């Protein structure tokens, strides 16, 4: 049981990375970004391209970092994946969402448009890499024996640490920097933000870059933790949305807590149910939140 909770926290930290971005995007743009899962997948495959194709072709193997199954090229792949997905998300805004926004089209249409972007991204992934499962490495590293009978692979410890570090970075950005505060101000009251001299269209690009970058990292970490497949992000949407709703829509800190709760709930459920029911657990939580706590566990979206 303790082991399931730990696995849940690891899964939850990945969900949280995706959910924080999803929540930030909702806060600024007021629509549910259905392409978020596929942006994760794109990040995972972008890293795959760097680690498995580009680096070996340059004659770089990189070996392995300590007890981890991958070497330093993976760190480079993180940066490449974040940059690539951030750029794709910003491009999608300029090509699709901004045009619709200018026509003052309803958020429902924007959400449907994001579904279209999702399908396009996934199709490109199928065309480029096919539908087979892929792995960053075939290296096997022994699991570590921890107290309470918990067995963890070093990779999993790394995944959690990396996710935690990224969440901390996002927190510091939002709370301490001028741009981070401007982002929160824009989410709070876009008209007043513009009146204060904030270029809200620029803030929208920032939020896509950040949300896209976090989605990319969630995808890569999910790929390290398990494996890569073109549907990995799409099937991750349900826990993502459950986490966002649980934490209160548009509240990134709520999304963090929501992500951890969903992750733990999904893993602990495997103690009682077949693992195939994991998505159903996220779905059940989503429905329960909508029925009994539609504003999320933290009540008001603003948290005051």
């Amino acid at each position, binding site marked *: 049981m303790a082991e399931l909770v730990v696995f849940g926290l690891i899964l939850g930290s990945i969900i949280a990375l995706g959910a924080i971005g999803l929540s930030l995007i909702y806060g600024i743009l007021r629509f549910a970004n259905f392409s978020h899962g596929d942006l994760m997948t794109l990040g995972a495959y972008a890293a795959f391209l760097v680690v498995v194709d580009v680096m070996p072709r340059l004659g770089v193997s990189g070996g392995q970092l300590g007890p981890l199954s991958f070497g330093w090229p993976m760190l480079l792949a993180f940066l490449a994946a974040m940059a690539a997905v951030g750029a794709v998300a910003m491009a999608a805004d300029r090509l699709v969402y901004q045009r619709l926004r200018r026509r003052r089209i309803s958020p429902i249409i924007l959400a449907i448009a994001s579904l279209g972007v999702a399908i396009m991204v996934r199709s490109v992934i199928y065309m480029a890499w096919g539908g087979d499962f892929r792995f960053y490495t075939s290296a096997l590293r022994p699991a570590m024996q921890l107290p309470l009978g918990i067995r963890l692979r070093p990779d999993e410890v790394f995944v959690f640490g990396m996710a935690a570090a990224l969440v901390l970075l996002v927190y510091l950005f939002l709370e301490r920097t*001028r741009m981070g505060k401007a982002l929160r101000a824009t989410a709070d009251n876009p*008209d*007043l933000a513009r009146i204060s*001299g904030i270029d809200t269209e620029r803030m929208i690009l920032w939020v896509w870059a950040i949300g896209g970058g976090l989605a990319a990292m969630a995808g890569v970490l999910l790929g390290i933790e398990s494996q890569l497949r073109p549907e990995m992000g799409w099937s991750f949407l349900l826990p993502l949305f459950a986490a966002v709703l649980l934490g209160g829509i548009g509240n990134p800190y709520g999304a963090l807590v929501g992500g951890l709760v969903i992750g733990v709930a999904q893993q602990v459920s495997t103690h009682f149910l077949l693992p195939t029911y994991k998505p159903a657990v996220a779905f059940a939580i989503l429905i329960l939140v909508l029925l009994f706590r539609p504003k999320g566990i933290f009540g008001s*979206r603003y948290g005051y």
Partner: protein
Amino acid sequence: MSLLAVDAVVVGYGAVDILHGVSIEVNLGEIVSIIGPNGSGKSTLMKAIFGLLKPKQGVVRFNGDDITGLPPHKVVRRGICYVPQAENVFLSLTVQENLEMGGFILNGGVRERTELVYEMFPDLKSAQHKKVGRLSGGQRQMVAIGRSLMLDPRLLLLDEPSAGLAPIYVDGIFQRVLEISRSGVTILIVEQNARKALSVSHRGYVLAAGENRHQGPATALLANEEVRRVYLGG
């Protein structure tokens, strides 16, 4: 030369025009009030000056430059700040953060400006780390005005600064307006509370149904028989 000159602006939402060619002028150092009944287009005029609405016709000049239709985030950089009537604070941000956002375009000196605003509104200093959503209506209005003073604007646009405030705060707000004016800021006020607004103003305009109806020195408007009867309630 006038600091702000609005010349025959026509503004509307879609096919419906709210302003049918309104003209006003504000000279350096003045306090000017725009009064008029509900729906006369007072707030629309403010939004048009600030670029939140684009005039279909007419020109807005600030300091001699044509700023017609310039987006708000660029109007701010010219030295105009605007306090809307409603939703004029960031509720989920702290008092301090609201002021910082007021100074968003500053390249430095945010701390010094913040201290000046706290000197003007000492109540805000003690609440600086509270989220504005937790403050009372009167305190929120101080945050809203404080935010707009962060840039040391040349022209301040105040839309209904006393609306929705408890009567005990209303005199206080107009006292602040006078203090701000004395510090060298030119002020344009839109007000329902016409008598109070005119009593602190140099000049005033009466708008009705989207058109200029009366204008002149505030004392003259306060003494004008028709203005008194129709717009000041006797």
